[in-house]
């Protein structure tokens, strides 16, 4: 049992001194024996109150939850479904009712095939690629998305954040305005939300998150650590790996999930979304509700302040094209900003267009390519080295913007590499220095 002082939320000094004396700032005198006896009686009485009958036995009031969302406007749903095609969501996600992207455009399946040794390529090349592939290995399928709140979906699509700490890539910031994001959210969650159950705040939910080993995979930032107990079911290692990678940070659950759907999901995830890495943990209805109540109502500490994003000073040594190409452009950028001559005119989404982006004609696969710039919003060629108003070269500003996105910000420039791990600041410093030195070939 917690001490009475904590239950009443009283500061420590008030229990030793009367409120009046505290307010007057008087020096406390040593308590007389009679006073000590009286204090003991009061404390005992209060303890009884806290343990037994009285107001504390009343169940806490149900959580105040957002009003259920009505069914989406069918016209918005139709527009949203068209957007799924335009934005090429199927290049990464499986989406019911939409044909998967062909292998040569399917980022995730291509990577999976390479790792599985199934991709048609010479063994030597395959082995080299297998060593390099770290991103986009597993992405959640967009099934059972009716469990999400449309309002959250629309916000998230416009400003994706690090929802799944176990993945080293995030949902990319696609070219979406608020209206399009709302349409897409309508397509993903078209149905009316079920009325929420009467959930009551309870610390039991916190205990269950630990004892059912939920926190083995899930992080829950903003609440005190919850050590995971023993996993109550057998879980294969591949499934555990997928779970560790895809488990969302539970601090977002209150904005992200519809409460009734959350309870149903906790009880049997696979029934709603076959193939999900979230295992079915045996839970009573009441337990699922207690977990849901904790997820939806536990006090959250604010996220830690992001470290400042510093543009490092220029290096005082010579930087060559060979060095920046190897460290940055060929290592990271090339895959999406490729030479369109490589095959049938498509240089990847950053060159020939894709994911809803217009072709920018930016080829980062060679020195002449990068020197040839990219197309601006009006179709005019511009240098990617031209300084922005603050003096930062455009290319460097895009690389820095990805750090800002990773820190939860929504910078005006789109961060690059799109949705992937930010390029280390020391590598950006290298690019910055190379540009300042006149971009030696």
């Amino acid at each position, binding site marked *: 049992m917690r001490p009475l002082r904590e239950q009443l939320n009283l500061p420590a000094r008030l229990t030793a001194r009367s409120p009046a004396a505290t307010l007057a700032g008087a020096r406390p005198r040593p308590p007389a024996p009679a006073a000590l006896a009286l204090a003991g009686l009061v404390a005992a009485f209060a303890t009884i109150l806290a343990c037994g009958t009285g107001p504390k036995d009343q169940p806490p009031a149900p959580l105040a939850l957002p009003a259920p969302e009505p069914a989406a406007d069918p016209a918005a749903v139709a527009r949203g479904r068209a957007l799924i095609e335009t934005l090429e969501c199927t290049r990464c996600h499986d989406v019911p009712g939409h044909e998967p992207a062909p292998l040569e455009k399917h980022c995730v399946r291509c990577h999976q095939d390479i790792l599985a040794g199934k991709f048609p390529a010479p063994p030597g090349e395959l082995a080299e690629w297998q060593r390099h592939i770290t991103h986009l290995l597993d992405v959640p399928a967009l099934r059972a998305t009716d469990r999400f709140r449309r309002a959250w979906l629309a916000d998230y699509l416009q400003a994706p954040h690090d929802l799944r700490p176990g993945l080293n890539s995030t949902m990319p910031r696609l070219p979406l305005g608020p209206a399009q994001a709302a349409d897409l959210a309508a397509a993903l969650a078209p149905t009316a939300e079920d009325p929420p159950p009467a959930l009551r705040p309870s610390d039991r939910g916190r205990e269950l998150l630990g004892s059912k080993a939920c926190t083995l995979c899930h992080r829950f930032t903003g609440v005190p650590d919850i050590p995971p107990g023993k996993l109550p079911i057998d879980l294969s290692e591949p499934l555990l790996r997928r779970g560790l990678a895809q488990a969302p940070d539970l601090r977002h659950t209150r904005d992200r999930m519809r409460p009734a759907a959350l309870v149903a999901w906790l009880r049997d995830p696979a029934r709603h979304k076959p193939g999900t890495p979230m295992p079915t943990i045996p839970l009573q209805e009441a337990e699922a509700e207690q977990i849901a109540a904790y997820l939806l109502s536990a006090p959250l500490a604010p996220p830690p302040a992001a470290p400042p994003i510093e543009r490092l000073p220029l290096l005082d040594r010579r930087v060559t094209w060979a060095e920046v190409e190897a460290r940055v452009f060929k290592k990271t950028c090339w895959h999406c900003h490729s030479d369109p001559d490589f095959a049938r005119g498509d240089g990847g989404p950053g060159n020939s267009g894709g994911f809803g982006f217009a072709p920018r004609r930016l080829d980062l696969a060679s020195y*002449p390519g990068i020197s040839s710039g990219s197309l601006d919003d009006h179709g005019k060629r511009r240098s990617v080295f031209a300084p922005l108003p603050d003096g930062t070269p455009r290319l460097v500003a895009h690389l820095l913007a990805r750090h800002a996105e990773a820190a939860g910000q929504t910078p005006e420039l789109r961060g690059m590499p799109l949705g992937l791990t930010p390029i280390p600041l020391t590598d950006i410093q290298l690019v910055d220095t190379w540009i300042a030195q006149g971009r030696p070939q």
Partner: protein
Amino acid sequence: MHRIVLALCLATTVLAAPRLADACGNTVRRIVDSTNESVRKAEFLLAQGNYKQAISTIRDEFGDRALAVHDGPGAQLHQRAQRVLAIAVVRSKGAVSIGPGLGGKTDAQRQAAIAWSVLTLRLRRAALDDRNVDCILDPTRCTNGEGDPHTNADLAEALALQPTGRAEAYRLLKDLGDRDLMPFAEGWALLAELGRERGDLEGAKKAVERCKQIASDNLKCDPSENS
């Protein structure tokens, strides 16, 4: 001349054809495709200044198709192969032969090869601009920002070998320089030469400076320095 007319007719056919379906095609595809390996090898030889071997590598892979306009699967690679031939001709001033009557010892052979190179690079610019026929002769009529800078710089290099093409070459390179889109050091060196020819000494000086910033030590940015 009849060769150029024939090529223009073929080009019109090609540019009127429907656009190929896009495919991903990047680092993965290029290693799977053996033709690509040959083109890459030829590009490497070209960069080394080994023009004859670069040409024979392309001719071995493509045969006579290397000189003709081609559409269909592999069109992009074919264009890249033709660029190797065109630049080999330009950098050898027409001395290397890429086919019968195209390049060699006589002035007529050299001029024919240079004319072929100019035409090939004009067609490449149009092909890269969504097959925009209007873009063949006039870069301001290209839809994608006055044409691909790399191809424009290549074209300028070829045009500069024709007495009637030097003004156009200067315009192309000056535009690239003004917009900070010069794709390689040789472009700055040529801009300096053409600028000096036109009395733009200040522009020529700047072009030499940029060339020296970018170039490796073995490129002569300012021919007047050692004279």
